[in-house]
């Protein structure tokens, strides 16, 4: 579980996060949604420790990241898996080396054991026979799956995903969403996904947090999002006609 308490973050005079308080539950896919510029990515970077909030605390299980010394923070990061928007695979390494990278850095396993684990996670993300290919030689969807494999290879406790569906066709996007949710349940990890894709909210939003202008304006499940009268939610969700129609149907059905 990750607990966020009254987090404030500014860049110069501009306050980006204005007192965010929430919890991200273990074993669930927690979604941070909001329009561009609402502070989603800044919150994610604060959670990852890449940005230091001026005020407030972020707890990983029971310990605040602000109270951890460098060594504790380094150990915490070994327990974090991250799926970046563009995949962030290392160009100079082939797929096998990319996925093996966290194992090489943080474990003392023999190469054969590492290779076995790499093949296991690649199989888990439905990728086989790509070990010797380089990132530039595979599709965007495959790169995302390799990135997921790299994120989970060292059995993390926390998984963060930044816009996992950007640049993907709807079918592949759904596939990635489903994979993230399956892995969350399978490994019983705390997953935090930053997105503005309503399909993702519908597919995997077990807990949804809506940010607007740096403030948390609503939180609930993907089922509750269609029933709430919160104006900010309706403005965000029903900016598309498709979702307006879905809401009408849902309200008729009670």
């Amino acid at each position, binding site marked *: 579980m990750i607990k966020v308490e009254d987090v404030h973050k500014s860049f110069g005079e501009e306050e980006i996060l204005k007192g965010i308080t929430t919890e991200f539950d273990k074993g669930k896919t927690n979604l941070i949604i909001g329009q561009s510029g609402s502070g989603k990515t800044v919150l994610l970077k604060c959670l990852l420790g*890449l940005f230091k909030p001026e005020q407030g605390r972020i707890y990983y299980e029971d310990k605040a990241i602000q109270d951890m010394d460098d060594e504790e*923070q380094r150990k915490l*990061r070994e327990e*974090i898996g991250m799926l970046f*928007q563009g995949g*962030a695979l290392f160009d100079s390494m082939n797929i096998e080396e990319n996925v093996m990278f966290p194992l*090489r850095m943080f474990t003392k396993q023999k190469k054969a054991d590492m290779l076995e684990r790499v093949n296991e996670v690649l199989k888990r993300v439905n990728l086989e026979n790509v070990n010797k290919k380089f990132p530039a030689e595979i599709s965007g969807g495959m790169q995302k799956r390799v990135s997921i494999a790299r994120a989970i290879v060292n059995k993390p406790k926390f998984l963060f995903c930044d816009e996992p569906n950007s640049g993907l066709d709807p079918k592949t996007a759904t596939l990635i969403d489903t994979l993230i949710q399956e892995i969350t349940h399978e490994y019983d990890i705390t997953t935090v996904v930053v997105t503005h894709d309503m399909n993702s909210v519908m597919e995997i939003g077990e807990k949804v947090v809506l940010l607007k202008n740096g403030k948390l304006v609503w939180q609930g499940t993907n089922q509750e999002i269609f029933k709430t009268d919160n104006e900010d939610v309706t403005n965000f969700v029903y900016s598309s006609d498709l979702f307006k129609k879905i809401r009408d149907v849902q309200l008729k059905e009670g």
Partner: protein
Amino acid sequence: MKYLQDIGSYFLMLKRVFGSFTKTSVLRHLIFKEINDLIISSLGIVAFISFFVGGVVAIQTALNMDNPLIPKSLIGFATRQSVVLEFAPTFISIIMAGKVGSFITSSIGSMRVTEQIDALEVMGINSLNYLVFPKIVALMFYPFVIVFSMFLGIMGGWVAGVYGGFASSSDFIAGLQEDFIPYHLFYAFFKTFVFSFILATVPSWQGYYMKGGALEVGKASTNSFVWTSVLIIAANYIITQLLLSA
């Protein structure tokens, strides 16, 4: 003000490069890769330029000797002094600022743009140590490139001087041995070490702290060449003043 900030951030970068080391086995692999990318792959262009510039120095010297009282051995002497004191350490370093410096900036800059550096940081890896330290170690082998350049520069001068009919082989070799001061080699290699550090760190700083997209990677590479060259020339002047004019 921005220049002061940049200088500060350069020294803070150096502090982080030497802190929180990457796993030794990984680092060893990275160092060998950098030696290949930065040193071995530069030998071809260094050999080509050194040989022909050495030849040109010999020909220019010979063509400017219109007084019959000046001994032909001066061609060898002038070639040696030019190549050992300035051409090999300084001129080759400027060329390396273009070749190796741009390569370092664009490779680190591309990693910044595509979030690969963020990926390293999120994993708890000191990205500066992982990316820059192996380059500094690899460029400690740069003096070998300069030895290679000196040898081929003088060889080029000998070929041009002897086969161009400007001097006999014995005159040229006598010139090479004339008034040889071993301290000049110390001077040449001392500044080579300083240049190698500039070559590894300034382009790395340009790439690591760049902001933006692919276009900015190109701009950063250009800036990298300009600033690395400026610093090499400035350091050359200061070192020469300190070591040779005393």
